[in-house]
């Protein structure tokens, strides 16, 4: 973690509201991504996110290694996501990553280009494990493989291999839709 981030963290611990908000803006996408990658619907992901930030605020002063902040937040988000999932327990809603229907709904407005729609369709067709891993890697590229492993409950030494397999599968599906990558991802 660079000096600026270190300073931000220390100021947040000291109760600086501006610093805390900056931390939230930086890591909220990570917390959200971990919750959603655990199969929580948006309402439940919101609960998990809120619980995560309360836990982070409560324990932040005990954080000794500032360079572990991202991984620590990701792990906290996983624990809170699992708790919410256990509480809801009975069923995992099927809301996640549905392929947009060809109607004038929000999806068709948001995904305006054929390329975007093809990529989304290819992503949505991947196995759930691949969606979870690639989604988290895409949304939280700052995480190391061990941190990704802990955040998703995967064996650390399988993260790299699984990433490779999932990316390869995604590229094959994109190729079937006649979409080519211009550079390696």
């Amino acid at each position: 973690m660079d000096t600026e981030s270190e300073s931000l963290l220390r100021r947040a611990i000291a109760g600086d509201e501006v610093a805390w908000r900056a931390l939230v803006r930086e890591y909220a996408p990570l917390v959200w991504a971990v919750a959603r990658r655990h199969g929580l619907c948006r309402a439940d992901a919101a609960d998990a996110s809120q619980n995560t930030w309360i836990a982070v605020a409560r324990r932040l002063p005990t954080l000794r290694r500032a360079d572990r902040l991202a991984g620590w937040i990701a792990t906290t988000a996983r624990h809170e996501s699992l708790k919410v999932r256990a509480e809801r327990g009975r069923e995992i809603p099927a809301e996640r990553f549905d392929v947009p229907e060809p109607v004038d709904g929000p999806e068709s407005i948001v995904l305006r280009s054929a390329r975007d729609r093809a990529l989304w369709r290819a992503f949505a067709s991947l196995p759930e494990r691949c969606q979870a891993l690639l989604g988290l890697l895409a949304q939280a590229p700052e995480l190391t493989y061990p941190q990704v492993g802990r955040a998703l409950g995967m064996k650390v030494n399988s993260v790299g291999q699984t990433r490779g397999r999932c990316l390869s599968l995604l590229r094959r599906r994109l190729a079937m839709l006649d979409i080519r990558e211009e550079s390696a991802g």
Partner: protein
Amino acid sequence: MNVLIELARLLRLMDPIPPRVLADAEAAGLLLRAPTPATEALILLRETVPAVRCAGRRLSFGRHVGEPLLVFEVRPVGAGQRVAGVVPPGAGLTVRTPVRDEDVPVDEAGYFNAEVPAGPIRLRVTEGGRTSETGWL
């Protein structure tokens, strides 16, 4: 195209963080300035319960035996919500909101699909002279 960068962009578009989540996260910072149980209770009280939890969840209602009387899903659509599902063929369906009741067209196979305002709803099924109604959802 770097596929992961593209994917990150699409996920931000398709699955944005609700503003309420960011507001709640920012409010949690109060715990750093006043770490008391009362503060935590205040933060938790800020949470508003969504009208429909986990939209897209399939719900079914019915009697203790036999086929369910009503199977449906609710999904947010724009500023409202879409209710879609199936009732026994020939049954009638009314979607009730706190402000009005709305009879929903049901096709000959029992399928229906309607957009209703956001907020709590309950569904009333009329079949063979009997009326059954869900609680508020």
